[in-house]
């Protein structure tokens, strides 16, 4: 089965240092199957015109293809109506759209609740909102749900963190660093009991390629994710919101396609969802997102998860046997493993692995508050996708041996470690058991 899937991905045809690339940076972005690539080409070759504008046949064709992907997306996440599905350019834009539009309703004293595990895209837009409101004399506070030593959200004080002033709750479904799958539906239910008017947002950017997204089960009000992390083109983001809420929100960007009529004095805004899609959208890439959804559905989350979690378990076992390796995050996780080799900076690890055609991520993973909470400046990260195989893990582990050779960690020379040993919350080391990905998370 997997050999067929690998045959679908042209990136594997290219050789790096004489080898196929062991691409282990899927949490950052995924490679594209041939059907997605040819759909982009086909859209430009055969079906390209602006959408929602021309009365000529080609424009209608482009519009139909574009709108058919909205329908597919609607079904993919279990939404009621395609009016609730908005195309943006990425999860970041989806979350900025919400911070901007929802933000206009906040009053002084209101609170926004996020977590220490968020990607910068679910932190910075809220910080910018707080700044904007402050210039209007409204003081709004951002609170953070902390993490525990297992690298899970610490919910022991949730009833204190949520107050009647909490107006927005925005959480990631899966951590892009630790792989932690958060019990967001449970958190939302608890939070809404205390703050019924609260708006609940789920950042599903990391989760959408690995587990079935069901907005009803998540019991959220808004959901954001990106096509490029689930085998679709880059430049296509998704925002789902409850129609009633979207209807009440002001538009985000103003311009073409988001209006019904414009006079010199004012504009009447378009119906949902187009009210939120100003300007010519990313037509060809939206069209090519259709085959990406079909690809994921054809393979199915059961098989995707089985492959990815087998590899995660195998990689964790191989890493955990090494006394120089520290793994971060819970035993029960998605297909993301962050770790450090004692005495070697992540950039050096990734650089050396690159010479062996093994692609891993190094750095702060756009989650610096989480890095601070763990007490590390940076980490190495491997993350799996549908096309990864056991040999990728073996080559990664063999590459780590080379790293240790280069840095002479196999010898008894004493490495001086800079800036270590400061007060840091070390996550439990004995936490490396990986179970089948929990479906209870939803």
């Amino acid at each position, binding site marked *: 089965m997997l050999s067929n899937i690998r045959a679908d991905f042209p990136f594997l045809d290219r050789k790096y240092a004489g080898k196929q690339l062991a691409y282990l940076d899927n949490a950052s972005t995924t490679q594209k199957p041939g059907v997605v690539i040819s759909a982009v080409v086909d859209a430009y070759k055969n079906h390209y015109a602006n959408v929602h504008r021309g009365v000529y046949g080609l424009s209608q064709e482009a519009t139909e293809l574009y709108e058919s992907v909205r329908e597919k997306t609607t079904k993919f996440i279990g939404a009621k109506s395609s009016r609730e599905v908005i195309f943006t350019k990425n999860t970041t834009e989806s979350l900025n759209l919400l911070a901007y539009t929802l933000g206009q309703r906040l009053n002084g004293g209101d609170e926004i609740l996020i977590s220490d595990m968020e990607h910068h895209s679910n932190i910075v837009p809220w910080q910018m909102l707080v700044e904007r409101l402050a210039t209007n004399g409204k003081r709004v506070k951002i609170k953070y749900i902390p993490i525990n030593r297992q690298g899970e959200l610490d919910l022991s004080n949730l009833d204190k963190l949520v107050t009647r002033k909490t107006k927005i709750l925005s959480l990631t479904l899966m951590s892009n660093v630790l792989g932690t799958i958060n019990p967001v539906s449970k958190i939302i239910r608890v939070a809404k009991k205390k703050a019924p008017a609260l708006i609940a947002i789920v950042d599903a950017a990391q989760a959408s390629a690995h587990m079935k997204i069901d907005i009803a089960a998540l019991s959220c009000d808004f959901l954001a994710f990106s096509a490029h992390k689930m085998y679709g083109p880059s430049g296509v983001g998704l925002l789902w919101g409850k129609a009633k809420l979207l209807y009440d929100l002001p538009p985000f960007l103003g311009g073409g396609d988001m209006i019904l009529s414009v006079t010199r004095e004012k504009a009447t805004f378009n119906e949902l969802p187009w009210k939120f899609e100003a300007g010519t959208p990313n037509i060809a890439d939206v069209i090519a997102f259709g085959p990406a959804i079909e690809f994921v559905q054809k393979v199915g989350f059961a098989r995707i998860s089985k492959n990815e979690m087998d590899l995660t378990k195998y990689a964790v076992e191989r890493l955990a046997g090494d006394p120089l390796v520290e793994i971060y995050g819970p035993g029960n996780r998605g297909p993301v493993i962050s770790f450090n080799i004692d005495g*070697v*900076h992540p*950039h050096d690890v990734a650089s050396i692995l690159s010479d062996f055609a093994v692609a891993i991520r190094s*750095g702060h993973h756009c989650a*610096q508050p989480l890095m601070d909470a763990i007490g590390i*400046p940076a980490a190495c990260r491997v993350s799996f996708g549908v096309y990864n195989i056991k040999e990728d893990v073996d080559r990664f582990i063999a590459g780590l041996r080379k790293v240790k050779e280069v*840095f002479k960690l196999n010898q008894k020379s004493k490495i*001086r470690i800079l800036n270590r040993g400061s007060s840091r919350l070390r996550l439990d080391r004995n936490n490396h058991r990986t179970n089948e990905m929990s479906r209870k998370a939803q």
Partner: protein
Amino acid sequence: MDLYREEILEHWKNPLNFGEISNASLVIDQINSLCGDEVTFYFKIADKKIRDVSFTGNGCAISIATSSMLSEKIKGKSLKVVSKLTGQDVLKFLGGEVAPARLKCAFLSLEAVRKIGTLTK
């Protein structure tokens, strides 16, 4: 991999001028936004000369080794000479080939040192 030659690793393991100068006349922080690496350079400047220099920080072998080598190069030099240091000079004493993705690591310390001119005017 050629980059990780013995000399570089030696600078990484035992960086020269590592630590804080207690009465520095100028302190410059530099952050690599790509990875969050940080260096802080401490300078004692008198008569338009760098009398002493040290650094602290947290970074990869390339950024720490470059900081170590660069600090050694600029010690005792006039600000005029230091202001003329270029990326090419840094790459020359680093020796190996630096992949584009790692240039930020290699230039982190140079970026800090380049700020001296603006900050001492």
